[in-house]
């Protein structure tokens, strides 16, 4: 029997506002514990939340970027549960009236496009962090509330994802959109992007979805993929051996590469949601929504269309260059410096991407666009050949030196002086009588060998078209 997996993802995105969602404390990562706290985010008696308007703006921007419906009226609710990292013992979230519903994220695989529906996005506050001693004899745990009250949006997809590969494509696309609109750095390691996966399987031909398990603790795209694959297999094995899949919350254990049960449906919390009486309903006017829309940066698909039109590069190239906002900005900087559009795109797609992936670096950290454009302009002006340029490039990303300096230091300037090249050509012809004869006998391949010999003697610095021309002139004499 064949089984069809169905996956829905809940993604928490930390918004990059300067201050927290309900108080004026700074949002931060990596500072000493409990330095960014106040009565509000500490949950002191008498403290009251006040919505940070920047959070609302960024949240609305996220909704508009996935073409969702923004609700002019929404409200906050209290989600009640006890945990030491949750100072008020309730999380302020949005329950039955979120600010945003019904969006879409389009994924693309080998030219095939698929729309994944976004059921809803809502705003909420983050909790603090517990700190446990690594020494098992220590009986105390500590709580750091710097993160408590950091703004989050939760993006909930419909169960329309069919495989772990699609899940990763969806997350990549979601991350790219959030980075494009600059509302989050989406850093999974630092927890500014967090993913929970709902997974079920059903026999082929059955309409009704199977019982789902919710998987938590997915800290990287790799973990998402591995956990989904593991869980699909686990559920299929259960069904095949005559057992039932239980509705439960499971944790991904990256060390053992397994999911393990955390709590069953019966043990799940009753959060007792009710409207947050300390906050007034969130009201947005048409004008406010249009103002946010007007501030919307150009999105990936819009950039792609523009690149094709303005720079006359193939759609494929435009797609690669706009996959990340960083790539697109880098590319446009090169073009602005005068590098021909196609040459810039070739270099980014071949050289830069390869090195960036290998070294796991951003373009700008690999090599500044000022240096790369200077190098590419040297090819344009004929000072160096394309081949030499690759040598300079390799050196440049190692040492971070100015390309002009490298060219000068290493004496790599292209030889364009005909008289100088003629001398080498004469020498090569004299030393390779056999090849000359082959050429004269009609074997064109021999020309290539002779060009190669000239380049070798000039350490690759001779201008190749010129070498070609001079060799032919001499051979035809």
């Amino acid at each position, binding site marked *: 029997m064949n089984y069809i997996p169905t996956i829905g993802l809940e993604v928490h995105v930390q918004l990059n506002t300067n201050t927290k969602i309900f108080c004026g404390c700074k949002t931060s990562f990596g500072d000493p514990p409990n330095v960014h706290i106040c009565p509000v985010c500490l949950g*002191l*008696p*008498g403290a*009251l939340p006040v919505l940070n308007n920047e959070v609302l703006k960024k949240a609305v921007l996220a909704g508009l970027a996935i073409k969702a419906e923004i609700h002019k009226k929404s409200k906050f609710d209290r989600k009640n549960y006890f945990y*030491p990292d949750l100072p008020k*013992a309730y999380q302020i979230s949005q329950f039955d009236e979120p600010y945003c519903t019904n969006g879409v994220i389009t994924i693309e695989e080998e030219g095939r496009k698929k729309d994944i529906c976004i059921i809803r996005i809502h705003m909420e506050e983050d909790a603090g962090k517990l700190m446990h001693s690594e020494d098992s004899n220590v009986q105390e745990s500590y709580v750091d509330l710097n993160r408590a009250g950091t703004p989050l949006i939760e993006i909930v997809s419909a169960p329309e994802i069919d495989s772990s590969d699609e899940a990763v494509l969806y997350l990549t696309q979601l991350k790219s959109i959030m980075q494009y609109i600059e509302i989050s750095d989406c850093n999974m390691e630092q927890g500014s992007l967090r993913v929970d996966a709902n997974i079920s399987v059903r026999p082929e031909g059955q309409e009704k979805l199977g019982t789902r398990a919710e998987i938590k603790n997915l800290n990287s795209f790799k973990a998402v993929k591995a956990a989904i694959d593991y869980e699909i297999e686990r559920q299929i094995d259960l069904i095949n051996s005559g057992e039932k899949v239980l509705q439960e919350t499971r944790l991904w254990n990256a060390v053992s590469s397994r999911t393990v049960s955390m709590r069953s449906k019966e043990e799940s919390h009753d959060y007792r949601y*009710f409207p947050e*009486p300390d*906050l007034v309903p969130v009201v947005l006017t048409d004008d406010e929504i249009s103002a946010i829309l007007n501030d919307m940066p150009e999105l990936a698909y819009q950039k792609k269309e523009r690149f094709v039109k303005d720079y006359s590069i193939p759609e494929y190239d435009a797609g690669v260059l706009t996959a990340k906002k960083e790539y697109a900005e880098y590319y446009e900087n090169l073009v602005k410096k005068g590098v021909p559009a196609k040459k810039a795109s070739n270099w980014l797609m071949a050289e830069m991407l390869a090195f960036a992936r290998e070294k796991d670096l951003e373009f700008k950290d690999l090599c500044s666009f000022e240096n790369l454009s200077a190098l590419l302009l040297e090819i344009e002006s004929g000072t160096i050949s394309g081949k030499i340029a690759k040598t300079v490039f390799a050196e440049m990303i190692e040492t971070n030196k100015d390309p002009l300096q490298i060219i000068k230091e290493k004496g790599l300037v292209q030889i364009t002086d005909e008289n100088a090249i003629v001398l080498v050509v004469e020498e090569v012809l004299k030393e390779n009588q056999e090849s000359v004869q082959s050429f004269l006998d009609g074997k064109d391949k021999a020309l290539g060998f002779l060009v190669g010999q000239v380049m070798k003697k000039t350490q690759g610095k001779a201008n190749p078209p010129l070498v070609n021309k001079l060799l032919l002139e001499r051979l035809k004499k």
Partner: protein
Amino acid sequence: MNDTLKKLSEKLNSKEINAVELTESYLKKIEEKDVKINSFIEVEKEEALRLAEESKKRREEGKALSDYDGIVIGIKDNILQKDRKSQAASKILEGFNSPYSATVIQKLQEKGLITLGRLNMDEFAMGSSTENSSIQTTKNPYDLKRAPGGSSGGSAASVAAGLVPVSLGSDTGGSIRQPAAFCGTVGLKPTYGTVSRYGLIAFASSLDQIGPLSNTVEDAEIIYNIIKGHDKYDSSSIPDREYKETKKSIEDIKIGYPPEMLEGISDEVKVSFFKVIEFLKKEICKDSQIKEINLPYQKYGVPVYYLTATSEASANLARFDGVRYGRRAPDAKNLEEVYELSRTEGFGSEVKRRILLGTYALSSGYYDAFYGKSQKLRKLIQEDYLKAFNEVDVIIIPTTPTPPFEIGEKTKDPVSMYLSDVLTVGASLAGIPALAVPAPFDKLPLSIQLQGAFFSEKLLFDLGRKIEQAFPAPPAVF
């Protein structure tokens, strides 16, 4: 006769007395008399005298912050003051020192008022007699066997006993008005959102409101005008531009009273109430301007109030878990026990009862039947009032269904205690202002309640002044 705020202000202005002498005189009264009343949980003597010195100096330099610079005030134990203890009369907040001040405290201090100490209350403002305090039982200065009302019993009793000229309380379903009534004082529950709740230990957020208790309507008005106003730290606080004061003179005022709300109240309350009605007909407005009105949904007030308030309280009081502040159970050995033991030992039985009730009302499967339904009825009660205020400007009803009851009389029967709020919860659910003013009485205090549309405080004060002039409350002798 206790001095009014204006009288005290005159004495300070004329240098008949300075702020230190004034403060010392009240501290002396507290020392002598509060042993009988138990209204103060803590008298902050040193701090008060330090503030009095500063005030005295300001006045000497001609830099008084206001006419009331140097006048003392008592504060209910659920209103926070920086670097001072505050525990809402609960064991669970033992040792809690607030790192910040409530907005109302800041506003009082900006005018130079001196806070004298913490006043007793029902634990977390849950109660109608102040018997639910974990610390002490406060007595009614008019009859020491009787309860001062609650939850702001300490605030009412201290004013009635002359230990402070004025005090702050908080009202969620009648917690200012009912003790004011029991102690023969004036008490105002302002329009919801006009006084900041920032720094008030929350009981039921959508109902809580801070207000003054005082000997005279004028004093209540003075304090109300100091503490009101928009606060950016309280989202439910009304922006100043939206505060549209009712402009109406009492000569052409229309008054209504709902006869169905007089059912089930004691005879002496009824007699006193109609004395006031007769006076108003004769002296204030024409016969035709006092009419009977209908508030059909008022009868659901008490259950709607208790479902709303306990639901919100179940979340508001969840933060008292022994993890970050207050009292942690000393025997707790793990996280579960920190929660269970701290809360079991820290909360009193009425607070536990209400947390359980509210938790139940919000539970999955019961939400619609309890919390959900109560919110629909709350809307209908609000609409009742809106309709009524199309016909009349002020609604007049008694404040309490009975004179003050005896200490211990109702503690065995929580429902009978809850029913003592029957006349006050309506204004709380609707968010409208209500002023309790002494009604004619001989020995045990009785009170009349004036309710008006949003922002009609001024009108209520004007009418209240006429009633208090006609029926001055005899002072408490104890």
